[in-house]
């Protein structure tokens, strides 16, 4: 025999290209929706983990000094400002502070790096405090240096790869012609630390001729401390800028939210277009088949049977489109991520597009619900067709 599902399916086969195009429309909408929701989930999570990976919640730098290696690179390694090392001690004395770590960032143009040379980033860190604060950094090989004046280096994963250095190898700091020994290579962390070469802070001060100077102080605040009040007090220090990572996160999120609103509007439009497309397709096929629907009714179909048939057709289109679109979104998540990286001013390092089963189910549910809604009107119209319609339009 034959059931209503087969009839609905075979009805859709009658206009293959039209059904196909409608499915493509829905698939695109579903694809955009899944990708965007995935992005929404992924971006914030990566940003949070990026900030956690920094190991400190507040960063103090000299006014106007770039506090991120990436920004420094963009500026071609220039624009660094310095703080006297003594500030670190005075900050360490504050009641809210758990620990501080002084840092001295430098960037040097290395003519032998890459094809036409590029910047190498060095971070001078305190052997006593830095490793304890940045417990997220794991070693692939070796260990941290223990002496702040040693001629030793720890290389980030990518830096080591780029320079093809291993533990025990020598590394010549460009421009300054000082040779250091690599004592450790870090595992990939997915952050800017991967491209950084860590040196003992005393060595950097000596080699780059910056005695007693710092570019930044990382501050780990006590768990129960009032960060806002502490930051307020830090602002009182002369010529200092306080970078609160909670603030940074907010700034980035608000930057991104503009982009998000835009992209969500696009998604909304895509969905609307898809819905209108579905309604149009089904309505068109109902109108074309008015006579035939009349005949179905003369065969004994009730209004509810016809409603069911047409609704099933709509649902089949939407479910198929939804499935294809979702699968596509999962398959292209990596490409989407690349695209977003190009579009957004700042992107954290972790996975930007996170598509998990609940998200897939949600989208699938949304698309199905949209299909059900879109099907209501055409199905209702079809159900109302009177059998006489068929015969009457035949004579005309």
């Amino acid at each position, binding site marked *: 025999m034959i059931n209503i599902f087969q009839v609905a399916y075979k*009805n859709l086969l009658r206009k293959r290209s039209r059904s196909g195009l409608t499915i493509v429309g829905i698939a695109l909408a579903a694809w955009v929706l899944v990708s965007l929701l995935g992005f929404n989930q992924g971006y914030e999570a990566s940003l949070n983990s990026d900030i956690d990976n920094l190991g400190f919640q507040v960063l103090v730098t000299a006014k106007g000094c770039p506090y991120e290696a990436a920004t420094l690179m963009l500026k071609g390694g220039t624009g660094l400002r310095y703080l006297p090392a003594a500030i670190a001690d005075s900050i360490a004395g504050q009641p809210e502070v758990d620990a501080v770590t002084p840092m001295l960032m430098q960037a040097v143009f290395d003519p032998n790096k890459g094809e036409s040379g590029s910047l190498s980033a060095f971070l001078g860190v305190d052997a006593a405090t830095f490793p304890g604060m940045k417990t997220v950094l794991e070693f692939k090989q070796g260990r941290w240096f223990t002496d702040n004046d040693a001629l030793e280096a720890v290389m980030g994963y990518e830096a080591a790869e780029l320079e093809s250095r291993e533990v025990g190898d020598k590394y010549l700091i460009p421009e300054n012609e000082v040779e250091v020994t690599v004592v450790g290579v870090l595992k990939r962390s997915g952050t800017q630390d991967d491209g950084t070469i860590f040196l003992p802070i005393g060595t950097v001060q000596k080699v780059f001729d910056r005695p007693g100077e710092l570019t930044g102080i990382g501050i780990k605040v006590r768990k129960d401390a009032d960060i806002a009040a502490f930051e307020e007090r830090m602002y009182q220090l002369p010529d200092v800028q306080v970078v609160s990572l909670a603030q940074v996160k907010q700034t980035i999120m608000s930057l991104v939210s503009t982009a998000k609103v835009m992209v969500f509007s696009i998604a909304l439009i895509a969905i609307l277009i898809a819905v209108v497309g579905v309604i149009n397709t089904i309505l068109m096929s109902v109108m074309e088949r008015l006579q035939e629907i009349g005949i179905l009714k003369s065969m*004994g179909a009730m209004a509810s049977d016809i409603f069911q048939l047409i609704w099933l057709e709509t649902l089949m289109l939407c479910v198929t489109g939804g499935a294809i679109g979702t699968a596509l979104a999962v398959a292209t998540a990596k490409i989407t991520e690349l695209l977003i990286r190009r579009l957004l001013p700042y992107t954290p390092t972790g996975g930007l597009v996170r598509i998990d089963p609940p998200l897939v189910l949600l989208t699938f549910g949304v698309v199905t619900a949209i299909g059900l809604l879109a099907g209501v009107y055409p199905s209702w119209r079809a159900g109302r067709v*009177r059998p006489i319609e068929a015969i009457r339009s035949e004579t005309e």
Partner: protein
Amino acid sequence: MNNQLSIKAEGLTKVYRRGSEEIRAVDGVSLEINQGEFVSFVGPSGSGKTTLVNILGCLDNPTAGKLELSGRSVFDQGQAQGEAELTRVRRETFGYVFQKFYLIPTLTVYENVVLPFTFYRKPGAEKGVDEILKMLGIDNRKHHLPGQISGGEMQRVAIARALVNKPRILLADEPTGNLDTRRSSEIGVLLGELNKWEGLTVIVVTHNVDLAKMAHRAIELRDGRIHTGPDACQPEQGCA
């Protein structure tokens, strides 16, 4: 099921309004058709055949008049039944065949024939399907698509589809309108056979002389009224 299902119409009238104009497509028609009869409706174009037969077949409401099926009132003085109730009456009683075949092109012949079962199935009706296909000579076309068979065969598929739920009355409005003479007379013979088969009442509207001739009784319509008199149609002479 009533074995003696008769149709009784009294003063059936159908008025269409086109702007201020009133068209009395059917104008006070009274008639009776008994179970097992083979009746043809003839008459010039626009004489109201389709309109009348649609009312007899409970596809359309009359503006006025009465229609009874085996003494059970379906329409009374323009008092129309609800669409759902009409559907119930229709699927119990009637099978319809039209000039166009309305086969679903992506369903096979067999699937088209059993299509009514997706909506309604009289108990045990599916057992008769093979017999019907055989009787209509399309059992060897079961798995073909409508596009792969001839027009005559398509109309036979449509007739088979009208018969699967074992109607008591088969209603055919110009069933041969899309067919050449040879296919038409084949359909005519077939309708005659169906009429003998289990006493199926056959009502056919036609312009085809040969087809009209095969009926036991021809009813001629003119301007919405039954035409009697010396020049009225005699079935054995054929009328069109």
